[in-house]
């Protein structure tokens, strides 16, 4: 039986993927409060996209995230991190200065806290997710 004919798998995967992605984004956003963070959450988001490509087809997955779009998102994640780091230098501090750049620090233990760190882990999450997905595509693609 070929992969394209399994109906149950397709419907279940279509139903499960949003939940995996919501959990991945939760792990990214709550990275400064609980275990996890940008890297683990990004990997979970990437796992959902790889699940899509495994169930349907690699070419159908490539339509959702082509190589050009993947490299664009990858670069955007890195640039986001470095730009947030350079904000500290603009106000006269070190690279990745947290307190003095105007982002509210919030109360410890709540979601809006830590200043720069949730924004940084958001950038890390996007970069890691796209990198893992393109790793899978470049391994599975016919050359």
């Amino acid at each position, binding site marked *: 039986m070929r992969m394209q004919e399994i109906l149950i798998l397709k419907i279940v995967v279509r139903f499960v993927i949003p939940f995996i992605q919501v959990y991945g984004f939760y792990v990214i956003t709550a990275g400064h409060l*609980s275990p996890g963070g940008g*890297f683990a959450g990004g990997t979970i988001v990437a796992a959902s996209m790889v699940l899509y490509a495994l169930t349907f087809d690699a070419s159908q997955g490539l339509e959702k995230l082509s190589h050009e779009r993947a490299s664009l998102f990858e670069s955007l994640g890195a640039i986001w991190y470095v730009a947030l780091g350079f904000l500290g230098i603009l106000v006269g501090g070190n690279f990745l200065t947290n307190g003095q750049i105007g982002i509210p620090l919030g109360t*410890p*233990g*709540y979601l809006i806290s830590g200043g720069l760190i949730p924004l940084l882990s958001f950038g890390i999450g996007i970069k890691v997710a796209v990198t893992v997905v393109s790793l899978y595509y*470049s*391994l599975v693609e016919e050359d």
Partner: protein
Amino acid sequence: MAEALAALGQNYFFYYALILFMVGFYTTLSHSNILKKIIGINIMETSIFLFFVALGYVEGGQAPIMGRGAEGGPYMNPLPSALILTGIVVSVSITAFALALMVKLYHFYGTLDADEIVMLRGERQ
């Protein structure tokens, strides 16, 4: 003597890390299939991570997370965890790179057996 034996018995994580390292090392040396070699390298890596994280274990401690309330008490040592997090990332990168090289080898030689690849290389020269 009895105290020394009791102290040795408490550190059972280290023995299991040693056993796992030996299993991985044996696999890497003795199996000729390249995917089996990669799995062996992964087992060796996880055994070393287990050794490091077990070094930071504190008897009766809790995970070092600052929550709302519920502070105090002994914590586990967070430094080995932070180091091993980087180690896991490096291990996955090494695995991905090795697998890509393995696909290239299969296209070039048509086999995944390391001994056969060595023989084929000998014939070509």
